[in-house]
């Protein structure tokens, strides 16, 4: 296995190739911002229409689990940022350890999320259920948004973990030149976006109506 990067024929040089990888990922992230943006817009509208119902509804979220998950995701962003750095330096073992740590943190996040969903169901917070316990009715809108937004975010975390498993395996097998490739970097960009979405979901879904 060579340490040299492979230049695709349609690029002028390696720098341009790497720049194109990063740019392409950023354009994808812009579409992701707008994808989640639609949900945030829905939240914005319904919260401005039913502010007190949203406070009543948000009080029922599992704030401790949500906050622990915030700290977990912020920490996973640190391990990813360091993995990108060590990959650039060609530090194979350190990169593997940092990706493994990221995966563990991702598993922790998903585990906490699963327990949280279990608690929400037990506490009758499924908005379509007859037994939904909150009033007035617009509290159901909050809880619909809660399930959709955290659910789609959890899907993104899962996809990110799948990407990290793939990258980990590839580095393990030395199937691409670590320092010369932007694979770790662009996977890192995706992971940071998932963290960014949570940075806004957490105060909007968990910290409302606490005082």
């Amino acid at each position, binding site marked *: 296995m060579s*340490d040299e990067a492979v230049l695709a024929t349609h690029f002028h040089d390696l720098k341009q190739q790497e*720049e194109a990888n*990063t*740019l392409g990922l*950023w*354009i994808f*992230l*812009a*579409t*992701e*911002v*707008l994808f989640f*943006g639609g949900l*945030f*817009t829905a939240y*914005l*509208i319904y919260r*401005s*229409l*039913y*502010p*007190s*119902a949203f406070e009543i509804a948000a009080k029922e979220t599992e704030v401790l689990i949500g*906050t622990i998950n*915030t*700290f977990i995701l*912020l*920490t996973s*962003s*640190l391990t*990813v*940022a*360091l993995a*990108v*750095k*060590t990959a650039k*330096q*060609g*530090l*194979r*073992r*350190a990169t593997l350890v940092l990706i493994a740590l990221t995966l563990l943190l991702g598993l922790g996040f998903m585990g906490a999320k699963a327990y949280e969903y279990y608690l929400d169901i037990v506490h009758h917070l499924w908005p379509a259920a007859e037994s939904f316990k909150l*009033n*007035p*009715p*617009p509290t159901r809108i909050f809880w619909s948004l809660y399930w959709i937004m955290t659910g789609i975010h959890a899907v993104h975390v899962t996809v990110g973990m799948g990407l990290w498993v793939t990258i980990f395996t590839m580095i393990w097998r030395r199937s691409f030149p670590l320092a010369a490739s932007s694979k770790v*970097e662009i996977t*890192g*960009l995706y992971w*940071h976006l998932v*963290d*960014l979405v949570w*940075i*806004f979901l*957490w*105060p909007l879904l968990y*910290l*409302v109506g*606490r*005082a």
Partner: protein
Amino acid sequence: MAEARAEKEQGFRFRDLFPEAFVWLALILLASSSWLIAYLPVGSFHTVAALGIAAVKALLVVIFFMHLKHSSAVVRMASAVGIIWLMVLFTFTLSDYLSRATGEGVTSGPNGRPPAFAPASPPVDQPAPRAVR
């Protein structure tokens, strides 16, 4: 070449942790303050504080963890595009909803039907019913 690789494989040094570790510390402190403020009796300041702190955290992640600090102009533009269109989406949607009388204080919906729940506050003036599509 083999020697060079062996040297590289020496591994991770303590100073490699920075500046990322400082950024992480700042993120944790900001998150903790956001959590604290949520329980303080500060009224409508809650939303401002929560979103302001979230914006600062997002900037830290984007600038330092996503390396926008060292990115080329075209990558910075691509990263700004998502935010710009998001602001367009928010602005035009809200300019519609905030200029109509709907929500918690309204006795009947925009198409003349009664609301799904009894309002807590007295009804406000409402615009003429819109045509039902």
